[in-house]
């Protein structure tokens, strides 16, 4: 997805105002004009002014390379590719939501098989490559580097 300079400029102005409002809510240090809110306020002013300039220059110049408001050339990539993107984010979400429960290896293996198969590999090839990558990463991080990868609570329940 692409945002035109006018839209992104205005978004930055809004962000700047929000940051400024938040910075004002931070408690000041008694007797000083500077406190924890000073630096965020500077950032907020920067967003507001910079975003304003960006939006203004977009209005003056008209579209150039970028769309005026926004465009999404990614969506033209075809349903197969979009499915792969969905699978990619689904895999990340699965790690966050079910990582402790199902364990790293199970999720990694299923996600890899799904991504390879959706990219047009045969099932056998997908499973073989996914198995290789999963075992390799599990050994590298779990054994060699000593990262406590979640083994998955579900497996101890089954036993």
């Amino acid at each position, binding site marked *: 997805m*692409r945002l035109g*300079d006018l839209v992104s400029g205005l978004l930055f102005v809004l962000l700047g105002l929000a940051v400024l409002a938040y910075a004002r809510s931070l408690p000041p240090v008694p007797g000083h004009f500077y406190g924890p809110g000073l*630096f965020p306020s500077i950032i907020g002013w920067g967003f507001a002014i910079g975003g304003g300039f*960006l939006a203004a220059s977009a209005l*003056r110049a008209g579209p150039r390379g970028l769309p005026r408001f926004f465009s999404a050339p990614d969506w033209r990539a075809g349903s197969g590719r979009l499915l792969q993107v969905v699978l990619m984010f689904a895999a990340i979400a699965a*790690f*966050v939501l079910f*990582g402790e429960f199902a364990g790293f290896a199970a999720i990694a293996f299923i996600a890899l098989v799904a991504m390879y198969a959706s990219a*047009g590999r045969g099932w056998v090839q997908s499973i073989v490559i996914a198995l290789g990558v999963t075992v390799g990463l599990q050994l590298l991080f779990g054994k060699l580097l000593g990262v406590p990868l979640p083994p998955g609570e579900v497996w101890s329940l089954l036993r």
Partner: protein
Amino acid sequence: MPLEQRELPMDYLLPALGLVFKPDTLFALLAASFFGFVVGVLPGLTATMAVALLVPITFILGPLPAIASIVAAAAMAIFAGDVPGALLRIPGTPASAAYVDESYRLTQQGRAGYVLGVNAVCSMAGGVIGTLVLIFAAPLLADWALKFSAFEFFWLSVLGLSCGVFVAGDRPLKGALALLIGLLISVVGMDYTTGTPRFTFGSSVLLGGVSFIPALIGMFALPEILRSILRGGESAALATRVVDEWRNVFASLFRYRRVSLRSSMIGTGVGVLPGAGADIASWISFALSKKLSKEPAQWGKGHIEGIVAGSSANNAALSGAWVPALVFAIPGDTITAIAIGVLYLKGMNPGPAVFINNADLVYAVFIVFLLANFLLLPFGWLAIRFARGLLAVPRAIIMPALLILAVLGAFAIDNDFSGVVIMVCLGVLAYLLEESGFPVAPIVLGIVLGKLVEQNLMQSLVSAQGNLLAYFERPISAVLGVATIAIWGYGLVRWMRRRPGAVGG
């Protein structure tokens, strides 16, 4: 320190040798070189991405092997980026883009082995020259910087931020906004003066700030994986044979030794500037060498001179970027931005005092630099033999594996999936920003420098007692302040002078 007491770099180099020649350090060097080679050879994957993905692995290593692996992976990735440039006309990393046409023309003439040899030898030469500058300049600079107060450090860090926006980017306004995003990310968490939580919105995970490494992995790996899925890009078939031509390689290096030396010096200088790294170094020295060349008619037809210039400069820039990183904790490029984070974690806090507190370690790092660059030669030899096989692996196989690696890396920092959430949020943000024409490198600069700028701003405000002239009372502080204002003036003038059709950041 009086002049006669000052020790020579050589006095440190010898004991440091003992630290370097240990199995774990040497193994880290080799393994990271191999990893950097693979990432660099794959088109679209940058040296910064190699380092970002490597950082979680460095966590369990000692300080020296950790830094050794970063240095080696970066140096090797920048060299390896030349390989697909020569064989496929696709630069493996942006730093190889400047001379990709010259390389490919030589390949079409059946001389891929010659090009790759020159790439390896010049990368090594550039890297070694950059390292020598680092070894001799950094301690002198640090000695001088020991006298700096909060005023100087405040100006220096603002100067670093300004350079990242105005010198490095061609879109200063968008660069500045990207930088502000980085600064905003850096203020999340407990305020360092009063301990007030800021922008945490009640989350206890954010109290300690946005975890840096997951953020980096997200910003550098995720957009690239996304783009690769959306736009595709299967491996291309290679037409030519690759034959060794080492005799010609060394003859060319001798013939163009001045070009290589000059480009290495330019590359080191560009590397020292915050925000500008290997990419810009190779463009500048390629363009300059073309201008100064004695054989201008040969350029564009597969002339080795430009390849010598670019290959030398981009590896030199890597070493140059470590000068401000070690001396002032101000990163010279995105790779050192990551490296600074690792240095802090390893208790080797960058700053002028590092040359006193950790002198042995610093000089051991220097030796590691030299070794990493010497490794480019055998890897160049291997590249000529095996790169074709590596390039034949479809990207559709590599990208999902890299995604899992990125998730693992983001998890492994705190052994918590909250890092993965940070990774995916910033990854999507970086993708949207890049698509909309915003550069991502200033965000990293902002995250790294944000705390430094704020701390020095608060400290200097306290000691100035409301007298803003205090920022210009100390001589070095005044010079740095004026330089900062000059850069802003230059940026504004350049921005206003643009034709209306060319505005937009």
